[in-house]
């Protein structure tokens, strides 16, 4: 299992390399540069600036230099926020994003599996239909619609929660909920479908034939198999939550790295964009590895060789 993990980590290296390369060259191939937006800089100053950031070197050399720096954990200075390094910005933003993202995933798993399992066990009942209707709503209505609506109703009309900003617990509620809702919906639909499928399997019939009480049949025989698809979904869920956080952080004005990313892209802040891409790509790769390992632990049929 350990060697499997190591091997997976090793195969992650080329993937990461491809991601960095694509992002790097795509950004450089695009017209425009980080110093375009401001008032026209005197030629000499701009040349100095470019030399300072090594932008005057051939692209390949720049890429090599960048890779070398990343290996040392150095993402370089931000082009836009001149007083900060990318590392400093990521260090400030990541815990914020992690907090709302992590909570959202946690909510999705807890609420989603419970609701989905209950719906499956009461298939075609009123509970089932209402859970599935809510889930369908959660999936179809995008969070950039849900978020303003929640803000409008709870924040503006009812004034029970703050509309934006960051720092207090109340301020975290709306963005977290808006981020979690679609994932809760996905997980509950997934759980319901797989639970129904498992309940129709032959081994559940065997468990019933053995005269086990229904709750034992469900918890011991059905639950684990029913939750395996949810475990597999955690990887894509993370990616979806990261994507969603871009919008949520923008809407609520949260100082996380999702918002940085959009602004940095608009500002052509090369190093910051790269930093965010590398960080999130590594995160997703790492999480997918964890998910595979958990899956292997849960499913005795998976062998690591």
């Amino acid at each position, binding site marked *: 299992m350990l060697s499997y993990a190591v091997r997976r980590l090793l195969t992650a290296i080329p993937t990461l390399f491809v991601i960095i390369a694509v992002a790097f060259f795509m950004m450089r191939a695009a017209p425009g540069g980080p110093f375009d937006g401001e008032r026209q800089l005197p030629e000499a100053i701009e040349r100095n600036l470019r030399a300072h950031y090594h932008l005057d070197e051939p692209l390949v050399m720049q890429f090599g230099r960048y890779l070398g720096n990343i290996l040392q954990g150095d993402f370089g200075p931000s082009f836009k926020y001149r007083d900060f390094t990318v590392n400093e910005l990521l260090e400030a933003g990541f815990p914020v994003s992690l907090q709302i993202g992590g909570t959202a995933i946690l909510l999705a798993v807890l609420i989603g599996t419970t609701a989905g399992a209950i719906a499956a066990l009461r*298939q075609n009942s009123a509970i089932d239909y209402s859970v599935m209707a809510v889930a369908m709503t959660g999936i179809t209505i995008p969070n950039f619609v849900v978020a303003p609506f929640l803000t409008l109703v709870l924040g503006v009309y009812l004034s029970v929660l703050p509309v934006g900003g960051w720092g207090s617990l109340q301020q975290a509620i709306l963005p977290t909920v808006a981020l979690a809702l679609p994932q809760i919906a996905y997980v509950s639909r997934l759980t319901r479908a797989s639970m129904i499928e498992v309940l129709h*399997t*032959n*081994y559940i*019939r*065997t*468990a*019933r*034939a*053995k*005269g*086990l*009480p*229904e709750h*034992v049949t469900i918890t*011991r*025989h059905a639950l*684990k*198999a029913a939750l395996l698809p949810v475990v597999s979904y955690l990887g894509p869920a993370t990616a979806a939550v990261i994507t969603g956080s871009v919008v949520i952080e923008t809407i609520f004005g949260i100082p996380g790295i999702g918002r940085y990313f959009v602004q940095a892209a608009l500002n052509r802040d090369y190093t910051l964009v790269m930093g965010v891409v590398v960080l999130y790509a590594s995160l997703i790769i790492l999480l997918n590895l964890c998910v595979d390992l958990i899956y292997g632990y*849960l*499913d*005795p*049929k998976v062998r690591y060789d």
Partner: protein
Amino acid sequence: MTSLDSVPETAPLLAVDRLNTRFDTPEGEVAAVNDVSFTIQPGETIGIVGESGSGKSQVFLSIMGLLAINGRATGSVRFRGEEVLGIPRQRLNRIRGRHMSMIFQDPMTSLNPYLKVSQQLNEVLMQHMGLGQREATKRSIAMLDLVRIPEASRRIDMYPHEFSGGMRQRVMIAMALLCQPGLLIADEPTTALDVTVQAQILDVMEDLRCELQTAIVLITHDMGVIARLSDRVMVMYGGRVVETGPVQALFDHPQHPYTAGLLRAMPRVDRHGTSELYVIPGQPPNLQYLPAGCAYQDRCPHVHDRCLGDVPPLIATAPGRAKACFLDQIHSDA
């Protein structure tokens, strides 16, 4: 039609009276089991034969309370005198797995792939016999030995996917017999297995029958298996019992044209020559659109007007024998 039973000297283990099983499907109601009545005596082995779709499995899934969600069974099923049809699940769970067990056709999917064999065996003993973990494991290993699983004490801690198909079916049999039930229902226990493995499983069952004094219901479409293991046979067609009787008598003198057809379709070593294997013409009936009258009318070589209008009742023809065919008024033997 309990009057059919000619051997009432002991109380029957299982008495089924006018069992009907219906399924609601989007295409309409499916009549899977129609007015089936029979009894099983303690310790006897009864074979249930029929093509797929004859309702033979559904009879016993109804009895075990294992019907699919869209199915419902009516009538009466008494196990040791106690009604079991339609009783609350909690009460049923004190009977199934304890006094009445069932094994299924497909051993590859009938064991839970996510639990060790030991867990799946022990939970039966812990549930019904109130045993502790250690005592249960001991009994489970003993039972695996009994069904001749080599190195049982080591293999009990493995997962089902580490067993072969035949070994898994042995595990299923062991699991069903853990509490020494009065009745074991085996639903096509060998159908999914290789021929050589089939023989081994039948050996095991034959030995256990003698050893444990358990009544066995053997559901199969294989007349050969019936011939080898059963005392009595019940032939089903279109959700009904069409003929029943002691094995030898029924094989020698089938009284229903369908039974006769089944026997002719059976490959036999004693019938040499180049004779081609007989095949009953036509298809089994669609249980959703059962014809008025006898379900076998489309395929029966002896069909006559009366078969088209009335369902032939199951009537006793000799002690322990009965058939559902009008034919005896014309011929005495098919």
